[in-house]
């Protein structure tokens, strides 16, 4: 970013960001400094990319006019710890309105690709059009400015995400990589394809340890564009650490905000995997397609239960002191660490084991690793497979696909492979389309086309208003377990207030797991890019961005019928949950009225701008 402050350090128009617009068909590249129009432009991430998407009229995700915007946040590549985020934004093949129009979507991933991209001299890359043959792009830093070249990608075709990254690693020094896998190459049949981002650990160890921009099919859009990978090659440009930033980082790495994600011997609670235990107290751990049974089987995947048979090592993204990655390795006979198996986070573990009736950590690791290699979003594929199994349980005489039922590991693996390779497009295109084609939508666990993460919909009436996936874009998914409040006032206030501000870090370039306070984020902006803003102004920009996303949904045909929950939440309450069912049709209808009374007004204001 380039700043030219003249007096005030709070004027967005004094900030410009560097953008490369790459026309994949003509191979024209335009690099320019773009002046910021508002605070959202300065902050970056989806705050900026959604303004670009708002200018387009897109009726199908797989058209040349649908841009793939790859950008960073203001604090990406800064010295603020976890400033590592890269954002991929486009109209999504997976997130669609009931009218069939694609919705604007972003997906974020961590590690060093974002910083490397920024160190080439670019804050943003827009991929326009579609290449005529498979290519990979190389973005290099040079003294004369960023250089961009197209390279033939024939050697990459068919390789897994990890294999592509290893191939590129061997040819490009001092670089990091974004790559799609077979799923992205089969974009027509796999709308849930993800983008893998390389990690330092992966490049050094050779283990399959990518990070992911997983949600919403950004890898499918990249696959449609025939861009199999992107190389960001630049020397590290780490600046001297200022005392103010050192204090922020210390608070992030040793303070209460990151305790959940740190190891127990580092004063932590052991990572997201450890969500199993508190959720199971209430029987809130999804089982058998989000239908907890109360049989205690989720305990078989508790970390304390799994750990004795494996080695679990906490590892981290570049320069991050939290070590939130809980990587599971084989345990050798002498107790030492053997081969890497998979990274265990709560979401993939639940959705690829407990929620499909599998209670074996080794099988879970196999499925997680397979989904990663093929390059899919483990939430979307896990939740779609649980639907297939549920359908087959309900229709034993007329099962679909390979007849998979809960607990059938081999058939689950077959469905995963088939989703990524075109054998089972019914899975790859997501649960909304599959359930609609079968005429049984009541237990299809999604909102607006995005499959649910591993949190029960009957505990979270806020799901429909999440703008980019049910949990990371609306902080209501744990509220019932945290506070036990089932009042209308509480939920309306949560959704329209604190819940939506959860997307703050999706502009800034930070990881939510760092628990950076708003005041620290403001300090970071001041000391890292010289931009001065108050916490209130920052949060107002976040709120405007959220409203812009809702306006974009409206633009793509979303109406009240899209903002609902699977009907079985209302019609088939689960008595096994530890809290009496409260999300009735009447409750939800009243909640919707309350939420829209607030949001409609603000969306109308955004529409005028």
């Amino acid at each position, binding site marked *: 970013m380039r700043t030219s402050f003249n007096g005030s350090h709070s004027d967005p128009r004094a900030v410009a960001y560097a953008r490369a617009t790459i026309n994949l068909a003509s191979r024209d590249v335009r690099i320019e400094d773009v002046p910021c129009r508002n605070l959202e432009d300065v902050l970056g991430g989806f705050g900026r990319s959604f303004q670009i998407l708002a200018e387009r009229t897109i009726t199908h995700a797989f058209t040349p006019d649908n841009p793939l915007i790859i950008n960073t946040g203001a604090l990406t590549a800064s010295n603020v710890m976890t400033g590592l985020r890269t954002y991929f934004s486009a109209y999504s093949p997976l997130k669609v309105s009931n009218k069939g129009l694609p919705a604007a979507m972003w997906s974020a991933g961590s590690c060093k690709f974002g910083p490397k991209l920024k160190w080439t001299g670019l804050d943003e890359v827009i991929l326009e059009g579609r290449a005529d043959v498979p290519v990979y792009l190389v973005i290099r830093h040079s003294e004369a400015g960023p250089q961009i070249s197209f390279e033939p990608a024939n050697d990459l075709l068919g390789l897994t995400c990890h294999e592509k990254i290893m191939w590129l690693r061997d040819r490009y020094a001092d670089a990091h990589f974004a790559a799609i896998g077979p799923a992205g190459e089969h974009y027509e049949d796999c709308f849930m394809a993800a983008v893998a981002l390389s990690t330092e650990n992966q490049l050094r160890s050779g283990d399959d340890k990518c990070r992911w921009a997983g949600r919403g099919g950004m890898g499918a859009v990249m696959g449609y564009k025939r861009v199999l990978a992107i190389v960001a090659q630049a020397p590290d440009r780490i600046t001297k650490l200022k005392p103010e930033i050192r204090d922020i980082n210390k608070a992030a790495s040793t303070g209460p905000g990151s305790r959940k994600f740190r190891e127990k011997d580092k004063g932590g609670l052991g990572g997201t995997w450890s969500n199993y235990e508190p959720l199971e107290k209430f029987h809130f751990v999804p089982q058998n397609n989000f239908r907890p049974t109360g049989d205690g089987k989720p305990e078989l995947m508790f970390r304390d239960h799994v750990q004795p048979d494996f080695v679990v090592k906490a590892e981290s993204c570049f320069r991050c002191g939290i070590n939130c990655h809980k990587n599971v390795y084989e345990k050798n006979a002498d107790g030492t660490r053997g081969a890497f198996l998979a990274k265990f986070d709560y979401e993939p573990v639940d959705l690829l084991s407990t929620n499909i009736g599998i209670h074996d950590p080794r099988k879970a690791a196999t499925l997680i690793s397979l989904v990663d290699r093929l390059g899919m979003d483990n939430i979307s594929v896990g939740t779609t497979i649980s639907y297939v199994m549920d359908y087959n349980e309900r229709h034993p005489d007329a099962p679909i696909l390979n007849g998979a039922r809960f607990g059938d590991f081999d058939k689950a693996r077959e469905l995963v492979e088939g989703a990524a390779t075109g054998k089972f497009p019914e899975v790859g295109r997501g649960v909304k389309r599959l359930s609609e084609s079968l005429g049984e939508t009541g237990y299809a666990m999604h909102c607006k086309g995005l499959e649910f*993460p591993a949190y029960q919909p009957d505990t979270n009436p806020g799901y429909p208003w999440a703008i980019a996936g049910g*949990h990371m874009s609306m902080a209501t998914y*744990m509220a019932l377990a945290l506070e*036990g409040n089932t009042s209308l006032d509480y939920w309306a206030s949560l959704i329209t207030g604190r819940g939506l501000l959860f997307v703050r870090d999706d502009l800034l370039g930070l990881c939510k797991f760092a628990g950076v306070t*708003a005041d620290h984020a403001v300090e970071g902006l001041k000391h890292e890019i010289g931009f001065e803003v108050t916490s209130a102004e920052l949060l107002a920009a976040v709120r405007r961005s959220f409203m812009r996303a809702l306006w974009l949904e409206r633009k793509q045909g979303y109406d009240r019928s899209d903002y609902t929950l699977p009907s079985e939440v209302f019609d088939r309450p689960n008595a096994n949950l530890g809290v009496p069912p409260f999300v009735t049709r009447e409750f939800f209808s009243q909640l919707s009225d309350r939420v829209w009374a607030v949001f409609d007004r603000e969306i109308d204001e955004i529409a005028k701008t």
Partner: protein
Amino acid sequence: MPRIRFTNLFAERIGGVSAVDVQAATIETALRALTDQHPSLMPLVWAKDGALNPVMVLFLNDRQLGAAEIGTPVGPGDEIDIVPALEGG
């Protein structure tokens, strides 16, 4: 005075304040003082039956405590962290 530190989940309800110093002799009285001072934190800290919210975890000077240790004495300079056991994705 002991200091209670907490996550954004708490801070965002009380104007962004991420730590509060309280006069108290035990962890429990410190938490009572916290919620007396900031009633909006009541449902996060305390369950309906008045016990510690079962999804909250306490740390005293970096050492994790069990729920039964809520009566642990505290003094000046002690740091109490109250952290949700549920977070992330």
